[in-house]
């Protein structure tokens, strides 16, 4: 078959589209390949991180004076823990009443966890994951929730022997089953964009919701998170047509977080 000069770009375009579609169709089966490549590149990434750790210009949150940053991180962790205690206390009061009747038990205290540090940001511009220094060698697996002293940070979406990629709950692709601490109403906390408030959906119009009210994970059947982890506080309430439009300020400030705990827990 002769390919003329005018039909050739069309032929090449069809070839590109066919190749792209084939790879997209096989994308899920190629994920192990991607994980393997990323695992092989981990030492290179560590080398780059060490080489640029003292350079502050243009390196954003991963540059700067190391000792000062370490101290700041420790202080923030302490502050976060104190804030989380307050949030948990509010939720615990309501939960205690509920437990009296349901005779249930919060399983959060029994879950094993691994402590780690956020060591890297995303590699590409449209990716909003962060990387932590714990991986399969420490028992971390895809789907494990990641928390800080302040509350829920996100969920593990990729893992290599010594690293794990975590997608924050404020990311646009993130959904968390959530519960209002006062009314106990269940909803879905949907991310909008990393660093912005979360939208709490499916809360009935007749439910009384106050600004500042604590939102925690619901832990209902099939949930990806155990119950009772602080998600954030209600920052804005507006009436909608079917449900209320509720904005929730995440309890974890990703830009200021260094230390995290990975809960070695997966949805049953």
């Amino acid at each position, binding site marked *: 078959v002769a390919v003329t000069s005018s039909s*050739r*770009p069309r032929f*090449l*375009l069809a*070839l*590109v*589209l066919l*190749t*792209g*579609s*084939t*790879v*997209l*169709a*096989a*994308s*899920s089966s*190629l*994920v192990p*390949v*991607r994980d393997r*490549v*990323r695992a092989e*590149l981990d030492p*290179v*990434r560590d*080398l*780059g*991180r060490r*080489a*640029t750790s003292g350079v502050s210009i*243009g*390196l*954003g949150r*991963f540059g700067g004076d190391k000792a000062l940053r370490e101290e700041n991180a420790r202080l923030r962790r302490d502050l976060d823990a104190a804030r989380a205690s307050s949030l948990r206390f509010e939720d615990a009061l309501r939960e205690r009443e509920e437990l009296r009747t349901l005779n249930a038990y919060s399983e959060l205290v029994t879950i094993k966890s691994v402590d780690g540090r956020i060591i890297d*940001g*995303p*590699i*590409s*511009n*449209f*990716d*909003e*994951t962060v990387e932590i220094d714990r991986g399969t060698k420490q028992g971390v697996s895809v789907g494990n929730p990641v928390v800080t002293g302040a509350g829920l940070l996100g969920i593990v*979406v*990729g893992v290599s022997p010594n690293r794990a*990629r975590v*997608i924050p709950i404020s990311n*646009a*692709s993130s959904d968390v089953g959530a519960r209002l601490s006062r009314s106990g109403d269940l909803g879905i906390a949907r991310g*909008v*964009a990393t660093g*912005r408030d979360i939208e709490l959906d499916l809360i009935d119009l007749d439910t009384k919701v106050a600004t500042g009210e604590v939102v925690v994970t619901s832990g209902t059947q099939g949930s990806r998170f155990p119950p009772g982890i602080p998600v954030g506080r209600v920052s804005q309430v507006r009436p909608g047509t079917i449900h209320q439009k509720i904005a929730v300020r995440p309890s974890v400030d990703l830009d200021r977080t260094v230390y995290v705990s990975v809960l070695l827990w997966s949805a049953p």
Partner: protein
Amino acid sequence: VRTFGADRAVPIGRIVLLSVTVLVVHVLLFSRFSLFSVRPEPFLLLTIVGALQLGPAGGAVLGCVAGFSADLLSASPLGLWLLVCGIIGLGVGTLALQLAAERQLAANIASVVGCTVMGLLLYPALAFAITEQRYPPPLRYLTIIVFAVLWNVLLMPIFLATSRRLFAPKRATR
């Protein structure tokens, strides 16, 4: 008139080698460059400057290989960057045949700016169409486009020199 990227045999070995090199350098270094949390887009840049030398077929192949390398580092489904870079490579390679070599610098800068913007418009559109992945908020999206273009223009001389060395047609000798 001598033109860019006259169509010729596609040096697949060199394309793969260069893409792997850019992958490693990006992980090691470029991903650390950050202005307003925006990093360079080296795989788009490689596709654009390489396609200027290689023409349509070479540009398309380079785009697919470089795009797949970008996919390996992304959290989105594999194949999205492959499609974007493949289309950009083919487009730049086709356009390169029409460009007179006398105005090379202006043509190079215009190609890098225009095609980086096009790639960054195409990627989230495809991601939305195929995986329903939401767009970044408008201000963040605009910041990504502006500063990614800036990074790519700044890195262009290095990529151009390398791609000319690897892909430029050899002059005939007597």
